[in-house]
Structure formats: structure tokens, C-alpha cells
């Protein structure tokens, strides 16, 4: 179904992405904590509309990779290119401006703020008025606030959350909080969305819904998505490319089919091959 072609650099990407700049490239990315090398020689190329998965046993360094990509951690070595721009020296804020948005393994919302304000915070960088026009309420303030209110509502509407707009974010049910985190990340208009265990704590029905949502996001916003996930049915179903991480190293890369049949992966991670229901 998904056909891979080779980039000039030698990496494989989806056929439909073959002639565009990859949204993410990392070369020899690594970080050491003290003497321990948590991630080592991490090379990955992600096409502009690809959904890819990052899997591996607990403690393999998956979240560390996300933290490196968003510069929460400073990489000890290696290069990160986002849409062809080097982000390895940037701050977290600038990486976001360069087009990377993320969610967190343990939900990190602005809990005391309303749902719509959570989204508006993420849209802050697209708003243009200074503190003085905020204090003295110039027409520009009203214009911009109205515009952003409309945009935030539209975005929430896509995820069926517009009726929750004025609810306090911390009081939302768990699934809605996860969804809001995704909405907030999308509000920064990223070209690459990093989802850290989006299905954690969800029941099979919610997971199924989430799969549809993730596909929808890709199709509607035309962005690339990388997700960390332990739920194999989700990963194998929606990911077009998968990288398997163990002890901070990529031990296998390829399509879901390749990964499922890869003996190294089976040995390191899956144990015995199992049938998914």
C-alpha cells in the first residue's frame, strides 16, 4: 500500500513526499547524561505528510528524542534540520516558531485557564498588538482579539470542542484533555506534530477514535506527525514509517510490515510474534 522511494541521501521516504524537502532530518543526533548515552546516532528522515511512529521498550529513549527535537534538552552531538533549517542551536521557543509542536506524555495543560484561552495562548505569536494598545484598549486590540477568538473557535470546532470553550481546562475529562493538548499544539501552525503517547489511558473505542483523528489532522492540516506509542494496533494501523528504538539506538526502520517481520525487533521488543485483535 505505502510505497517507499529513496532520497538522494539514501534514506527512504513515502513516494508522494519524494520531491519535497523533508520536514525533519536528524544526523548523528545524540545526548549523554553524565557517562550514560541516552540517545546515540539517531538518524531519521520524515517526509512532509508522513505519519511515522517511534516505538521501543520502556526506557529506550523515545521521549528523550522528542525532548531533543524540541530542544528541552541540548543535544551533545548531531544536527537537526526542520524544513531544511538547522534547529540544533535554537531555543525551544524558536523551534516551535520553526514549525515543531508537541504534546506531552503526562498532560501539560494550562489547567486554571479556560479551554479557549489554552488555544489562544498558542496563537499568541500570530497576534499583533503591543502592551500599550492592550492597556488603553485601542481598536487594534479589539480587532485582533475578535479575529483570534474566531480562529480559536473554528479550530476547537474541528475537534468538536467548541461547546467546551469556556470550561476550565483542568476540569475536562481525561480524553478531552489529551485532545485539547493536540488542539493547542496545532494552534501554533506547525509543520511537524510530535505526539507523546496520545493513546495512553484510553479504552479501545477512544483509541479507534484517536486513529481517525490523527489521520484527519494529517489530511486537513497537511502536516507530518511523529508519534510515540505502546499500543501496537494503533501504530501498525496508521503509521506509514516506523523506527524502533532500543537502548537509545535505532535498531530497525521501515514500513509496519517490515517491522512486524523483522527478527531483530521481535527479539528486542515484541518477544514472540503475537496476533493483534
Amino acid at each position, binding site marked *: 500500500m505505502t510505497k517507499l522511494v529513496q532520497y538522494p541521501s539514501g534514506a527512504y521516504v513515502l513516494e508522494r513526499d519524494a520531491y519535497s524537502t523533508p520536514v525533519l532530518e536528524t544526523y548523528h543526533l545524540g545526548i549523554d547524561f553524565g557517562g550514560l548515552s541516552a540517545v546515540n546516532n539517531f538518524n531519521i528522515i520524515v517526509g512532509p505528510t508522513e505519519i511515522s511512529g517511534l516505538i521501543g521498550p520502556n526506557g529506550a529513549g523515545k521521549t528523550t528524542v522528542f525532548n531533543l527535537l*524540541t530542544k*528541552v534538552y541540548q543535544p551533545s552531538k548531531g544536527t537537526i534540520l526542520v524544513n531544511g533549517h538547522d534547529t540544533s542551536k535554537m*531555543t*525551544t*521557543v524558536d523551534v*516551535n*516558531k520553526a514549525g515543531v*509542536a*508537541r504534546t*506531552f506524555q503526562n498532560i*501539560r*495543560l*494550562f*489547567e*486554571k*485557564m479556560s479551554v479557549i*484561552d*489554552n488555544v*489562544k*495562548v*498558542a496563537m*499568541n*505569536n500570530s*497576534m499583533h*498588538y503591543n*502592551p500599550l494598545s*492592550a*492597556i*488603553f*484598549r485601542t481598536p487594534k*486590540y479589539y480587532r*485582533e*482579539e475578535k479575529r*483570534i477568538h474566531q480562529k480559536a473557535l473554528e479550530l476547537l470546532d474541528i475537534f468538536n470542542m467548541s461547546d467546551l*470553550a*469556556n470550561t476550565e481546562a483542568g476540569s475536562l475529562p481525561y480524553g478531552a484533555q489529551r485532545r485539547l493538548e493536540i488542539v*493547542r*499544539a496545532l*494552534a*501554533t501552525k506547525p509543520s511537524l506534530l510530535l505526539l507523546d503517547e496520545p493513546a495512553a489511558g484510553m479504552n479501545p473505542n477512544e483509541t479507534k477514535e484517536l486513529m481517525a483523528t490523527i489521520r484527519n489532522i494529517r489530511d486537513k492540516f497537511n502536516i507530518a506527525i511523529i508519534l510515540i506509542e505502546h499500543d501496537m494496533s494503533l501504530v501498525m494501523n496508521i503509521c506509514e514509517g516506523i523506527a524502533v528504538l532500543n537502548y537509545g539506538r535505532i535498531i530497525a526502520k521501515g514500513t509496519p510490515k517490515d517491522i512486524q517481520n523483522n527478527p531483530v525487533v521481535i527479539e528486542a521488543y515484541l518477544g514472540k510474534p503475537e496476533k493483534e485483535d
Partner: protein
Amino acid sequence: MEKMFKKIFDKKHISRTVSYLIVIVGYIIIQLMMNTVGIKNLFKSLLVPTCCYIVAALSLNLVVGVSGELSLGHSGFMSVGAFAGILVSGLLEPYLAMGWLRLLIAMLVGGVIAGIVGLLISIPVLKLQGDYLAIVTLAFCQIIKSLLNNIYLGVDNNGLHFSFVQNKVVLSNGGRMLLSGPMGATATTRLATFTAGFLLILFALLIIYNLTYSRFGRTIMAARDNRIAAESVGIHIRNTKMLAFVISAILAGMSGALFGLNYSTLQPAKFDFNLSILILVYVVLGGLGNMTGTIFATIILYVLPELLRGLQDYRMLIYSMILILIMLVTNNQSLKEKVEALILKIKTRFLKKGSVAND
């Protein structure tokens, strides 16, 4: 018209409306009382300082409550504003007869200078977090005090004379000392009025509320609630916190200027660590981020010790006991829930009348 009415009383803006109303109604009542039955001189003398402390507490609440950083140097900014204001007023005195204009200029200059100092301080301070930030702001407050304790500044026909040593400032005939070290400012013309204090409170509320209900308020609160998440959506934490810090310093400077011009003499030692703590107590007991509460707490806790003067030595004992009691009551969860339920009841009844489909 109806829409405007709705906006004033909806869930989000009700606290703002209440704050403004309290201040305006309070002002009108006190003015009426002054013009009819009259007020004891003791209370009259408390009016302007109360206004100053309210503004100082409101501005500190912007940093501690809204921005979530514990600052113990707030009296430092008041001090800078006070002495800058006194200087400006003193220098302008021969040229500008109108008292209110001089007061206005003094307050503006005091605010601007305190703001500049706040900006400079915030650069090192905001690299720190939590307790460390508190300690550095505390040190700043002490530095300002020591510095002002050693400044001798006089003016005569030849211009300004400045020294860090007392007898170096020699003034020709007709010269005046503006600042004389630990003695501070002496022979200041008193310009502060209750009306000026009232207007300053309104101005402070305007700035704080309008800032809070704007994109800046949202980012400030986001940076407080979750630093890492805020950075991940492109919020520059330091700039955001700096804005809150500087605005707070400006307001504190303005309140300091008003405070300074309310007394004929003012010593730098007045703005010490104790004052910072006192203002912090107003903020904490009034509620972090709660401006209406801050106004109430300041009025009660500032006027209370004066009311207790009759008790002489037991005054501070009773004052501190009341403080502890308020703290216990405000932290009592079951009591809080009861009060919240009551407010909700009143609100639903009130809002039924004026249809609130404004979501």
C-alpha cells in the same frame, strides 16, 4: 447597550466590575462623609497611605499572583518612586505653581524611573526561579535602602550638588537640601490628596485588568501554570515575566511617589524589608490574583492597627492574632466551599434575570 451590560456582568468580568465599583463607591462615601459629618483627623491622615498601599499591593499581586514569582523587593520600587517623585517635585517647585500638575509629573517620573530600575533588576532576577528569585529581590530592596541612606543632594542657584559624604555638599545662599542621607527628604511640600490616591487606584486597576484580559495576560498566566508547555507553544518565558515585573515596578513607583509627597519628611529606612513583607501579607490574604480581595485586605489590615491603638502594648499581639485567624479561615476548605456555593447561588439567581447566552 444590552450587549455591553452583559459584558460588564458576565462570569469573566464580574470581578473586575466589582473592583471598580468598590473603589468608586468607597470614594464617594468618604467624600460625602468628609463634607457632611466629618472624619476624625486620625482617619483623614490614613486615607492617602491606604490608597498608596492598595496600589502597591495590587501591583505586587500582578507579580506574585498573576505571574507567580515571589518578589520581596517591592518596597525598593516604592522607595525609588518616592524619592524620584520628591526630587522632581522639589526641583519644579519654583517654576510650577500648580500643585496637582507637579504631583502628576512627580508620579509619572517616579513610575518611569522605578520602571527602568525594575527592567534592569529583572534581567538578572528572572534568570532565577522560586526561592532564589525571592532572595535576590530582597537583596535589591536592601541595596536601594543603603544607597539612598548615603545620598546627599542639594540644589542652589548653581544647580545640583551631589555627594556620598555629608559635608561635601555646600550650598550657596537660598540653596535647599533635597536629600540628606539617612534623614531622607526634609521639608517636602505636601501635595498628595485623597482624590489623587483614588485616581491612582483606578489607573492601577485599569492597567492590571486590561493587561490580564489580553494576550499578555494569557501568556503571563500560561508561563505561571506550566513553563515547559508554554515554551513548547512559542511563549518566551523571560520576556513575558519581565513585562509583568516592569509594569508592577512602574505602579509601585507611582504609589511610592504619592506616598512620599504625603509627608513633609521621609526617611529611606521607611521602605525596608518589613514594608515588603507587609504588602505581601495584603496580597496573600487578599488572594493571589484576586484584585478585589487585595483591596479589602489592604484596607482592613492597614486601618486595623490604627483602630487598635487604644489597646497600647497589646496592639501588635492582637493584630498578629487576627492575621493568623484570617489565614486559618481563608485556608479552610469546607468554609471556602460554602462561600463558593453561596456565590454560585446568588449568581444564578442574578443571571437568570439578564439572560446569559453569551458564551
